[in-house]
């Protein structure tokens, strides 16, 4: 297991609220969080992709993780809500400002494209409405092999009873198809009181149809794999990326085998079933 992460804290312009979100996450024991900027392109007018707010603008000193002596790590993440294939622009330089890249496809066709081809780290599963399509095994297996993660967020389930039903139903259908592989659980919280502790989320995962082990990995190791996937994505495309830490080199060397752990053996097993 690795440290606990919450890769989806909703960005809000209110700095003090965002600050208290990060502080609460640190207090609950999350060592890494990602501030999520949602970008929803519409056909009518051209919109700017948001630029991430530097963390130094937000707080001078990062809060210390509960029970530990080190400060929390804050990443930036962009989620593109895709209702058309043109909404994702793989070459957009704006994307490179973010540590993590996610899409939320709204149709079966776009879901297939996101699983099989798009250069992204996370695919968000809709939790606020009835799933507009059924999950198929082929795209999901494709995503698992490429190391792309599926994200289920739980804050909507706390806000509203109807959303709670959609969240559980959509999450359960996902788990039936992906068998608990490559699933991350995150909050998508807008307020500190919508955040829950890592062990609570692990338990909640059982409700979504995850096993004990998969559920705990969904807030720890699987999130870490998503972060590593994001780190390798930039170097894989041949672009040199400057980083602050010196420990990045060994991590990157180690990352590819971890992702390729899945293919041969597991694929064979899946086909047997």
């Amino acid at each position, binding site marked *: *297991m*690795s440290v606990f992460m919450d890769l989806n804290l909703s960005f809000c312009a209110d700095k003090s609220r965002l600050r208290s979100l990060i502080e609460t996450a640190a207090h609950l024991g999350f060592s890494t969080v990602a501030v999520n900027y949602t970008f929803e392109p519409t056909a009518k007018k051209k919109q700017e992709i948001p630029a991430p707010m530097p963390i130094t603008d937000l707080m001078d000193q990062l809060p210390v993780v509960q*029970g530990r002596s080190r400060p929390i790590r804050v990443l930036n993440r962009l989620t593109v809500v895709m209702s058309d294939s043109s909404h994702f622009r793989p070459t957009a330089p704006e994307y490179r400002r973010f540590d993590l890249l996610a899409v939320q496809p709204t149709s079966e066709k776009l879901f297939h494209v996101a699983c099989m081809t798009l250069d992204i780290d996370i695919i968000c599963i809709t939790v606020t409405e009835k799933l507009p399509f059924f999950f198929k095994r082929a795209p999901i297996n494709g995503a698992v092999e490429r190391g792309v993660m599926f994200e289920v967020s739980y804050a909507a389930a706390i806000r509203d009873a109807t959303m709670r039903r959609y969240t559980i139903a959509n999450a359960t259908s996902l788990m039936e198809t992906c068998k608990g592989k490559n699933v991350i659980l995150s909050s998508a919280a807008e307020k500190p009181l919508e955040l829950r502790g890592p062990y609570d989320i692990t*338990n909640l995962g059982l409700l979504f149809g995850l096993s004990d082990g998969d559920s705990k990995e969904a807030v720890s190791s699987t999130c870490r794999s998503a972060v590593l996937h994001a780190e390798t994505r930039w170097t894989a495309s041949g672009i040199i990326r400057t980083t602050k830490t010196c420990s990045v080199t*060994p991590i990157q060397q180690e990352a590819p085998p971890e992702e390729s*752990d899945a293919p041969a053996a597991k694929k064979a097993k899946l086909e047997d079933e």
Partner: protein
Amino acid sequence: MTTDLDQNPRSLLVSERSSFRDLKNRISSQVEQLHLNYKVSLLLPEYSFDRSVPRTRIDEDNCVSLTPKGHLTLSLDKDSFEVLGVEGKPSRFNHRVKKRFVVSVDLTDSCMAPGGRGYLRLLAGLKSRLRLKMDFLLSHHPGGGASLQTLLSRHDWSEHRPEVSRHTLTHLSCPALLTSDLLSCDPHSFLEWLGAAHAHISCGNTSSSFLSSLVCPEPKTALSRALSVSVCGLLLPQDIHRLLQQIRVYLEESHLESWACLTVHGFVDSPVSWGANEHGVLRGGENFYSLLMFHDDVYYLHQATGAHDTCPP
């Protein structure tokens, strides 16, 4: 997957009855086995007046422990394990992919002597490649002063005294027939009652009360008073042994039908428990034993663990 919400989570409880007089009793070795003790609680009826662990979390970070017998255990995540380059084996509690590895080193081995081959290799790994930084809890052992001083002089350190708290419990209901011949209730209800006593939870409910239906196991008696003492900190098995001897002396001096109950909690995030067995955390990393002693030298030992642990000896 969706239907087994009702499953009982994994737990293990070993309940033993034996006597101090029994030559084959294993109590001293059993006390030795849990090296890293966090808290000792003692419950006395009718009486009015308890080495090294890092501060990290075993299910998330790298954890290291050193036991007095010279056994160094490192529980490392995959990255750190590969960087360290010392032989180890995958953790028993890995899930799908091997993410955690345990490196176990016997420091008393000849090649681990300062300057030895193994020693240099491990030192190189730890010093130049891995560069772990941790806070350690060390326990001071009388007689080992000099070497400890030199070690401490090279690091930031502060001294912490174990924290002692004392409570007198009055009008405590207690399972009757708490005698050496027959422990009237099953181990789980006994431990529940003991926990309630230490947590100051009232057992004075009826089974129909709305808030809580916790009741003292039947048949029960009432104790006018009892003493609950607890000590928190890093405590050594030697300390526990000494305490055990004192309690036995006290029990022999006191009147019949007397008993005492000693509970020792291990560290949740210790990489080892019950000897050198691997220990982990799923929901909680509980590992403790509870020793119920009687004046005629008979004792009941309850050893309890959570989900990620081996069966106690």
